[in-house]
């Protein structure tokens, strides 16, 4: 199934890069029931990693309690304008997606 691209914004200020990521994902908890009373199976992102060029800057593990269309913000030292930020995620159905953006 097709997945929608992530929105990634990275800005560098005084040697610190702030990265904001907005992922498009349902993040279904597996606790909700649909109209017929059947449980909606869990479907959520389990892992999300961010890299600055090829260096890992964040590795996260998410649970079902993270909101639909997850938002993440973090900061790391270093990074320069034009450097590449790569974010990838993987969900519990084995789907994955990788997007990249340049530091502004």
């Amino acid at each position: 199934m097709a997945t929608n691209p992530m929105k990634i914004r990275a800005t560098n200020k005084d040697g610190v890069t702030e990265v904001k990521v907005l992922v498009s994902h349902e993040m279904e908890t597996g606790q909700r029931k649909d109209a017929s009373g059947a449980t909606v199976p869990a479907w959520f992102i389990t892992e999300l990693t961010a890299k600055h060029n090829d260096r890992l800057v964040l590795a996260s593990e998410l649970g079902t309690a993270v909101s639909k269309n997850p938002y993440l913000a973090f900061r790391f030292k270093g990074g320069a304008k034009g450097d590449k930020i790569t974010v990838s995620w993987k969900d519990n159905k084995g789907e994955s997606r990788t997007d990249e953006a340049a530091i502004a």
Partner: protein
Amino acid sequence: MNKQRRNVLKTCSGAALMSLLAAAGIIAPGMALAEWNKAAFDAKSMADTLKALGAGAPADSKDVQVTGPDIAENGAVVPVGVSSTLPNVTMVAILIEKNPNALAASFTLPEGTEANVQTRVKMGQTSNVYALVKADGKFFMATKEIKVTLGGCGG
């Protein structure tokens, strides 16, 4: 042939291999990034979650901050942030005491990444939100109560 027996043997040898590797220091615990910590995310209570994360009984610390609203109108989207001024923070986790599974998210921070992470979580009801921080191999914690007027699970 007894299929179940086969499976049990298979699972056991897999687990044994993992622990052997860990013991030999080939895979340092916590560094096996590709492995989603199922035990921690499946744990229901705070105590079980902490145990699954290997945190034991973390000490309360003033150097750890949980940021978030005092009252969240919509439990489906509650902005929560964790920050810490402790040195050498390698892990940050967000736990919500009264959710069906306490652990919401955990972040591994390589060197150079600041202990300052924001995200949005779902909350079923008013609850204490805990920030768990691992710094210099020790665990620290901070709490904030967030009141929810409309639960994130249709409540």
